[in-house]
């Protein structure tokens, strides 16, 4: 039996989306720092604007450096196409604005990044879009929350910061039975650890700011279309299946088939909302992608060493890492994330005499290698106290529901030598109890 042969993940992360530059022979992806592109003639210009020919017009809509990043992400995710955005939040807004109209409703996991929570609960309602939050550990809640006006199911693959694992196969079945797309924020897993389309998700987004870049030098996001949602069959998405006045009556499904969503998002959302990625940032993020497989395998190795260490430390009252057997989603993580359960570890410090918050603060300030900052996924190890920072806009009830405990410390485990990481944690834990 002959078998189809495709380039493997590590190869794609170095090459996908790029052919060496024909004119200069440049091997690296050149940085096309330009806003616009000279048209050979008037007819050619008109053809490009009218989507009769393929090519670049203006860097808000597309740029050759950015396109390499987009195509590479689509290749790594097994998608049909991608759009790079100015940030992870811009990728989420672009997806929502492409799919939804005023009056629409979203069912979203309750355990998500604080910024996404704000968008759903405080900002989108101003535009007539409401959201019901549900427990991602209980797929049935997604099903029960679906209403006639629901247009999207949303969750993170690994929740920030609670590290809940989404049962993508089950939730994607619920979504497809309801004729709705499932979108996942796969920032914490990256395509190296998990490919959501293989399990039935329809749209994937990343904050590329995190592990995709890995260097912590560029903010960016990316939206990827799985090309596996039946827009026509669902009957819920006139934006995808009816003539669009903003483009001479173009019907995106008729014109682009499986790439309807990503083409609409570019033709409308990037054009009108304009949250494009800069070529410079795409250039940085491409450098990051080249080493994604190597970094991720080291990230998960170090994270599981750190989790095991904390699990045995006296100063620690609880540890949460989906790769630990005591994590409620351990089995699901083994199935969906066989290469490793990411590199975020959260834990609670046993409160000293001056209370949980103070002990946590002492710990964070005593750390020497871990940097205290508001980011994750850097090659360098990072630490933060979510309740007072990333999730501080939430009240006590909201924090509880989002799985953020007062004493919780979140570590983003980097690529340093694990011996140094463990020794830093050991000394800071000791200091925290003094």
């Amino acid at each position: 039996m002959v078998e189809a042969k495709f380039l493997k993940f590590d190869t794609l992360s170095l090459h996908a989306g790029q052919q060496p530059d024909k004119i200069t022979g440049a091997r690296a992806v050149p940085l096309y720092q330009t806003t616009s592109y000279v048209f050979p003639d008037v007819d050619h210009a008109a053809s490009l604007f009218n989507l009769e020919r393929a090519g670049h017009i203006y860097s808000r809509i597309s740029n050759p450096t950015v396109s390499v990043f987009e195509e590479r992400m689509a290749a790594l995710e097994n998608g049909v196409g991608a759009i790079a955005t100015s940030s992870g939040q811009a990728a989420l807004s672009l997806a929502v604005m492409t799919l939804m109209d005023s009056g629409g409703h979203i069912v979203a996991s309750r355990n998500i990044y604080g910024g996404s929570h704000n968008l759903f609960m405080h900002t989108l309602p101003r535009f007539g879009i409401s959201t019901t939050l549900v427990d991602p550990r209980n797929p049935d809640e997604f099903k029960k929350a679906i209403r006639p006006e629901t247009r999207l199911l949303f969750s993170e693959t690994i929740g920030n910061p609670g590290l809940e694992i989404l049962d993508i196969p089950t939730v994607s079945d619920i979504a497809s039975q309801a004729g709705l797309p499932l979108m996942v924020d796969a920032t914490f897993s990256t395509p190296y650890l998990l490919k959501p389309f293989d399990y039935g998700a329809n749209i994937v987004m990343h904050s590329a700011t995190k592990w995709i870049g890995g260097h912590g030098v560029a903010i960016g996001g990316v939206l990827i279309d799985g090309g596996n949602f039946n827009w026509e069959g669902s009957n819920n998405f006139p934006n995808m299946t009816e003539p669009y006045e903003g483009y001479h009556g173009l019907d995106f499904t008729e014109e682009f088939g499986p790439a309807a969503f990503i083409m609409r998002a570019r033709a409308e959302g990037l054009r009108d909302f304009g949250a494009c990625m800069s070529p410079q940032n795409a250039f940085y993020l491409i450098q990051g992608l080249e080493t994604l497989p190597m970094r991720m395998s080291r990230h998960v190795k170090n994270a599981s060493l750190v989790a095991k260490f904390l699990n045995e430390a006296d100063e620690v009252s609880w540890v949460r890492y989906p790769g630990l057997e005591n994590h409620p989603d351990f089995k699901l993580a083994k199935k969906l994330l066989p290469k490793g359960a990411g590199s975020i570890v959260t834990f609670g410090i046993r409160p000293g005499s001056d209370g949980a918050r103070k002990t946590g603060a002492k710990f964070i300030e005593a750390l020497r290698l871990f940097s205290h900052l508001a980011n994750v996924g850097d090659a360098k190890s990072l630490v933060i106290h979510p309740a007072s920072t990333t999730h501080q806009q939430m009240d006590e009830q909201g924090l509880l529901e989002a799985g953020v405990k007062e004493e919780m410390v979140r570590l983003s485990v980097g690529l340093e030598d694990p011996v140094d990481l463990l020794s830093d944690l050991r000394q800071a834990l000791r200091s925290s109890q003094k």
Partner: protein
Amino acid sequence: MDIHINNLRIFAHTGGKPFDPNKPIFVLIHGAGTDHTFWGLQTRYFSHHGYSVLAIDLPGHGRSEGVPIDSIEETALWLWKVLDQVSYRNVILAGHSMGSLIALEAASKRPDDTDALILVGVAERVAVHSDLLAAAKKNDSTAFDMITDWGFGQKSHLGGHQSPGLWMLGGGRALLAECSAGVLDSDLSACHSYIGAIEASKKISCPTLLLLGDKDRMTPPKMSVPLKENLRISETKVLSDVGHMIMIEKPNETIDVMDEFLRRALS
């Protein structure tokens, strides 16, 4: 646009312009397991450059109702029925892969009604690998993988698409995966059992373009030579670093070559 034939709805994409029977009619026929969207850019370009384009979805494909026809000759007869329904003008026929065999056969059946013929990714025989035939028969998704792998040229496996942000292997695979059960089997069987290409070539009188990819593993350029030897007026254009999915892999060059050929052929 919808065309009704035998009480079935047949869809033809007109590329963003309403069908105008007074312009030259340019018919685009897709290959096995795909649909009109494979000709997306070409459809839009030619419909905005003086032609009335009909990118037809064959029965059971894309937006067309019905069941797929498992014979090239029968599909060619069916095609004329559809075309006679919309106009009695002469037509330009273009096809890709299985569609190229249908276009060739259709042109041979009514040479006087065909003004020009464009065969993209064509061969004298489109013999399909037995493993692929077997997978398609079982509606096994490995058939989509095999076509995607062999269909796209090696260079296209790296991407670098002309349409920003699109990953063509993913797009091709996703379109094939939309096929209803039995469609791919029927299409591949039709290709495999068709042996009339040389006889058909002898009957064709209009200018014919053979548009090929130098790295095509499904219909390698040398397999079109017997057709060229039997066609009365023909020219061959081989695009470099391209596999079998020519109009997806090099959409702009495909437009340029077709446009230039038609200007000469119709003058």
